[in-house]
């Protein structure tokens, strides 16, 4: 048992997988530079000491190139873990991410696999509109990617290891304010998402949501940083309003654990979905649409969503604070429908 941050837990997960399987390697910008940062958020810090620069491969600033190289290597049987420093930069690699990786197996009639992991940090951190996006929904819409979004170190490690062993392309969206990076790479406004990590190896299967707090009056579905805002909202709702909220973290968006969610909503009759991404066309819409259709009769109130407003992310601190959903807005949403 050891207390690790998400950045550390991911690092240990990568280390274990790279020790276990020679085909696993990391590819990205600034990830293995000697005396460097270990990637934008220290996740790969020190790994090139153990594995060398061929397996912790620094690239030019060429997102299309590096993501495409990962896809090609995966098609040939390696198991790359690629990363982009901020998820906003995925748009520079979008042809590879949308047109190639998730379609290659299908187009080959099932002959090819693309066992790659693509890590991408999301979330607003006072850096303006091009370093703030939560982009999960774009990929949620693209058939062929699995999507993990760990909210704590335990999940991060377990999901990463599962991702590396999956034969499909897998996204891991990590929240910048949850990494727990220390020192110069620390992000202000960080939340402690560290966990006790067992000494023994463990994997977390995809498609298994976690009920973080049991409740009976309303279900709150949230990912990443929004999990913490939701838990805080739930506590205050309980202590101040006597409302018992169940908080669920789906942990993976594709596959999505509808079973756990539906069971919960059948019990509570109410659902609030929370994501940091903007509302219109976000993944929350899909869940809301499905819940509203599949268990229509179990709903005591319409499904509500708490999301960022449909604007680019503003820079100024008070604006960004207003942009990102928080416990107050979640409470409001719960109270409005209660």
């Amino acid at each position, binding site marked *: 048992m050891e207390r690790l941050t998400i950045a550390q837990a991911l690092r240990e997960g990568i280390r274990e997988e790279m020790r276990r399987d020679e085909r696993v*390697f990391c590819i990205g910008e600034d990830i293995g530079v000697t005396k460097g940062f270990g990637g934008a958020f220290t996740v790969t810090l020190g790994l090139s000491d153990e594995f060398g620069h*061929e397996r912790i*491969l620094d*690239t*030019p600033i*060429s997102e*299309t*190139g*590096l*993501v*495409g*190289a*990962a*896809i*090609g*290597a*995966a*098609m*040939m*049987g*390696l198991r*790359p873990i690629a990363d982009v420093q901020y998820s906003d930069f995925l748009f520079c690699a979008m*042809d*590879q991410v949308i*047109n*190639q990786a998730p379609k*290659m*197996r*299908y*187009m*080959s*009639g*099932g*002959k*090819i*696999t693309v*066992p790659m992991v693509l890590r991408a940090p999301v979330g607003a951190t006072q850096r303006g509109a091009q370093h703030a996006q939560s982009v999960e929904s774009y990929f949620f819409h693209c*058939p*062929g990617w699995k999507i993990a979004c760990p909210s704590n170190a335990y999940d991060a490690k377990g999901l990463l290891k599962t991702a590396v062993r*999956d*034969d*499909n392309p897998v996204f891991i969206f990590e929240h910048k304010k949850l990494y727990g990076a220390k020192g110069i790479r620390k992000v202000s406004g960080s939340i402690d998402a560290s966990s006790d990590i067992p000494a023994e190896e463990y994997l977390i299967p995809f498609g298994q949501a976690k009920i973080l707090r049991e409740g009976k009056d309303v279900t709150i579905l949230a990912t990443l940083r929004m999990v913490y805002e939701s838990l805080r909202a739930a506590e205050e709702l309980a202590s101040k309003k006597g409302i018992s909220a169940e908080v669920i973290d789906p942990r993976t968006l594709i596959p999505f654990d509808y079973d756990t969610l539906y069971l919960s909503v059948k019990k509570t009759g109410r659902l609030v979905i929370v994501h940091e991404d903007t509302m219109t066309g976000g993944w929350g819409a899909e869940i809301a649409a499905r819940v509203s259709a599949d268990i229509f009769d179990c709903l005591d109130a319409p499904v509500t969503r708490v999301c960022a407003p449909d604007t680019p992310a503003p820079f100024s601190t008070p604006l960004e604070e207003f942009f990102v959903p928080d416990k107050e807005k979640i409470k409001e949403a719960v109270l409005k429908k209660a």
Partner: protein
Amino acid sequence: MPENKNIIDTLPGDAAKAMYRAMVTIRQFEDTVYYMFLEGKLPGTVHLYQGQEAVAAGVCANLRKEDVIFSTHRADGHAIAKGVSLNACMAELFGRVTGCCKGKGGAMHLGDIDAGMPPAVAIVGGGLPMAAGCGLAFKYRKQDNVSIAFFGDGAANEGAFHETLNMAAVWKLPVIFVCENNLYGASTHVSKVMKVENVADRASAYGIPGVTVDGNNVFEVYRAAGEAVQRARMGGGPTLLECKTYRRGGHSRGDSNLYRDKKEEAEWLAKDPLVLVREKLVTGGIITEEEIKNIEEQVKAEIEKAVKFAEESPFPAKEEIFKDFWAD
């Protein structure tokens, strides 16, 4: 582009004949596909390879089965030269379940990884980064295989070209970037979209060798590709190999090339790579007229067989739509 007079002499006769046969096969295959397309038997569109046969044949004659090629929307010639089964290619064009991609890929995605060819990539330039990744995998595993990226002159203006050549150069990957410069990207003449004379002139921006050859001369292509492949196998890194060539037909479907300069067209059409190779093989005493006739007839039979195979093959069942998608 000085012609190496000795290449035919030094080339084993079998290799020369094999290349010739590949070229004949491609030509006949494409002529047949075009006929089928006009007959309304093929869905979608076609991008045919007549006129460029020497490139696929000359490059792939240097390859082993385990070497891998990445192709484009204009994939038939590459698939045939790399040894994807004619039956499976034809059936794929017909959208049959016996196709090399089970009918799921289609004309722009021909390929069979068992023959060393993943599905062709129909996004212009989109195959290059993956070709580099394939080369990376070879290098990572210390295999002396090579990865080939075929692409057009038009693709050389895509960002993916730049990022990939740079990456491959920096990492010394065993990748040959084979640009088939047929002077047009769709209807756009290369001179309108590129100020340099040769695509290969761009190699210097990445610090790698750039070579331009007559892409209608299979022996020149063979030799230049051979050097590049050899260098790559030995750890010498990538090469940008440009083959100047010309489409005999339109860009796709019913395109009748109205935008092409008629003088340019006449000049290039006169340099039919199949006529050229045949002449050289006969003059060089490598092949007899009779052998030529035999090859042509054998190929004809094979292609007829492939058409028959395709036409008699079933379409995939509807449930197939959900298969071959997720790996598990």
